[in-house]
């Protein structure tokens, strides 16, 4: 079961985890990303490429499902304007093996950060800036590249 959701609304983490817990695997892992209020951040704005996003996230989930024995994958990414403390992104996995659930979850958030068409803009009192991509994120992704 692959569930992909992209939209402006907040999402119900408990409901998504309950779906994954109900899959019978015994192991559920999750990662949630939340807007940080560092440096006087007022709001974070998430832009995406609507025609591409869903397909890119689906390919990502299918890749994870090929690498690990997973029973369920949930990928949720919000777009639009968010305040500090709001959830941006959720990755959830279910498996019969705890390492598979945890590793796949880690893989998915690492790849999502570098391979899905989202862009963040930070709004502060003194202006707005687009977030620069981090080489550390590329390095985190490359850790998963196999020969």
């Amino acid at each position: 079961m692959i569930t992909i959701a992209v939209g402006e609304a907040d999402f119900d983490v408990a409901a998504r985890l309950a779906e994954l817990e109900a899959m019978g695997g015994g192991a559920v892992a999750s990662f949630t990303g939340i807007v940080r209020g560092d440096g006087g951040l007022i709001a974070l704005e998430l832009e995406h490429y609507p025609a591409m996003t869903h397909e890119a996230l689906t390919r990502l989930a299918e890749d994870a499902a090929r690498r690990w024995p997973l029973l369920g994958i949930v990928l949720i990414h919000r777009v639009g304007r968010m305040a500090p403390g709001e959830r941006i992104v959720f990755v959830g996995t279910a498996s019969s093996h705890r390492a598979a659930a945890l590793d796949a979850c880690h893989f998915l958030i690492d790849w999502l950060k570098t391979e899905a068409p989202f862009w963040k803009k930070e709004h502060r009192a003194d202006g707005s800036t687009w977030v620069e991509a981090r080489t550390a994120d590329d390095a985190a992704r490359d850790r998963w590249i196999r020969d």
Partner: protein
Amino acid sequence: MAIDFVYFAWVREAIGHDAERLDPPADALTVAAVIDWLSGLSDGHKRAFFDRSRIRAAIDQVFAPLDAPVAGAREIAFFPPVTGG
């Protein structure tokens, strides 16, 4: 042949709009060649594509390197490196 160009993040802001249908010259065979041509269209396009190392592209919704051929493309997107998650 006309191609739908779509722009995101500061590429979009520099160009001033988020999409346009244009007909690049027949000798613009790669993404990079298309960028060269687009850069001449306006000051905004020039600014958007000034630092090529910060430009990423997708052809028909699939990431493509700048040396990818554009033959047959219906939609080409330009944007900075992604920063989601």
